[in-house]
């Protein structure tokens, strides 16, 4: 740098040419996914089942979170071959997970031409301190959060979509509710706050002031906000929608249940008709066995959600 006299300025340190994909286009796809269900799938066959059920996107991964939990070991980005096969099989958007902070996995996923990258705490961390600088990518990112501060930090890093983390692979909705309530509650507090107090509030939740102020004005997160981690029934999905989410991710809940196709279809319908108990009752009938689920009072259960800040 000293020799050439070249310096890079903030926002211009791009690895790839960024300007082709402005933030509006990145958020745009997430906006098209609103009111929809994004399902975890591990092969092309499951991707087809999800598409036929009416999923608005699929998340391609090697093992669903429940299996990651059961089998342990290091969970990484899926084999690109698998992602390609899934992409071939369906016409709906395909997402894939990269490890937190592992920007090379993200570069590979971008090159594969998938539609969204999930920088996910469900996979083993690659970097304990830093997330991926998502401004450097043309592909949009979705990131997890447990509270408002975490959500706004991710947005500042370039995430174009947020999902509350919940506790993936447990089939237990409690953590998802906790996180959604935390985000929504903080926003309600923020909305009633005097402008003078926002500086300290921003410091307290460790989030950038401008985004906190924007959130206050909007009364919601400035990007699309999905729920994730523990959705196992149509009622769970509708609960997330009534709490104010824009859509849901369903991980292990579908393909770890007795009749995946039927359950997937029911969850899709529940998200559209989330405030209509008549429809909810109808679609919840006779779905077969739900995934078994894990009681989260047990402190031996590893908390994926606490892996990143």
């Amino acid at each position, binding site marked *: 740098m000293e020799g050439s006299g070249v310096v890079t300025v903030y926002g211009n340190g791009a690895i790839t040419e960024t300007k082709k994909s402005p*933030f*509006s*286009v990145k958020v745009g796809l997430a906006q098209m*996914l609103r009111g*929809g269900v994004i399902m975890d799938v591990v092969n092309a066959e499951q991707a087809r089942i999800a598409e036929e059920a*009416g999923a608005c996107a699929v998340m391609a991964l090697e093992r669903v979170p429940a299996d990651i939990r059961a089998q342990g070991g290091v969970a990484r980005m899926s084999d690109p071959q698998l992602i390609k096969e899934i992409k071939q099989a369906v016409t709906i958007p395909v997402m894939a997970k990269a490890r937190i902070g592992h920007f090379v996995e993200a570069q590979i996923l971008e090159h594969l031409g998938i539609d969204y990258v999930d920088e996910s705490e469900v996979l083993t961390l690659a970097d304990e301190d830093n997330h991926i600088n998502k401004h450097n990518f*043309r*592909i949009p990112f979705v990131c997890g959060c447990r509270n408002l501060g975490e959500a706004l930090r991710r947005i500042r890093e370039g995430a174009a979509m947020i999902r509350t983390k919940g506790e993936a692979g447990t089939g237990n909705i409690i953590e998802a509710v906790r996180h959604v309530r935390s985000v929504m509650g903080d926003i309600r507090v923020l909305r009633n706050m005097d402008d003078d107090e926002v500086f300290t509030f921003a410091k307290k939740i460790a989030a950038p002031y401008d985004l906190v102020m924007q959130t206050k004005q*909007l009364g919601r997160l400035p990007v699309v906000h999905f729920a994730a981690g523990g959705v196992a029934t149509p009622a769970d999905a509708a609960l997330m929608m009534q709490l104010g989410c824009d859509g849901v991710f369903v991980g292990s809940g579908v393909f770890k249940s007795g009749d995946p196709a039927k359950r997937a279809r029911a969850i899709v319908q529940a998200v559209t008709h989330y405030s209509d108990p008549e429809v909810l009752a109808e679609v919840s009938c006779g779905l077969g066995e739900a995934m078994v689920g894990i009681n989260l009072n047990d402190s031996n259960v590893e908390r994926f959600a606490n892996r990143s800040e």
Partner: protein
Amino acid sequence: MALVGVLALQGSFNEHIAALKRLGVKGVEIRKPEQLLTVNSLIIPGGESTTMAKLAEYFNLFPALREFVQMGKPVWGTCAGLIFLADKAIGQKIGGQQLVGGLDCTVHRNFFGSQIQSFETELAVPELASKEGGPETFRGVFIRAPAILDVGPEVQVLADYPVPSDKVTSSDSSVEDKKENAEEENKVIVAVRQGNILATAFHPELTADTRWHSYFLKMGNVTGEEASSSGIVPAQVSTSYKQPLQNELPIFQ
């Protein structure tokens, strides 16, 4: 105040309702066939067309939608909505999907490719500018967008977009047929009107420019003058439980 229905199965229906609100018009969410009877015009928003088609199928919406279009009531489809309204769509999922039809054209689903190829551009919109005023161009946001490959004689082309023939060199299989299209014709159609059907491949609801929305509302007024003056806007049926506060996302410039 006129009521405009917005098909609220999935996708950007909130954005459409927010855009209508900026024009002082109330948008009503349509999820069931009987709700279609309460409105005089309908917007089919962007979203995943396969998902929307599945949901429409589950709740038996297709007959009602076809009837609505055939009655000549104004209908506008954006992106996925365009696919819904087209008589013929290519690039569909295995097994295809149901369409509403009515618009005499062939649509290529997901023409521009995956999200990496999504883009924003200034489109020349002479017809819109002459009717609604404002600048000669419109900020078109294309998200995994479809394109219209050819249209019937009754269809009026409102905007097109040049496709460079050296475009896209990805290894995707769906790109192959796209390439040959690009070679034979260097422009694709992205906005059309046929009678009371309006269709755009891009997303006016994602921009602050409401000219397409007001253009659409005027289509409604030509045919249904008497309806727009009705003072008896039916009170919002509140059979539903908790409806979260409808706060809208910002518009990114």
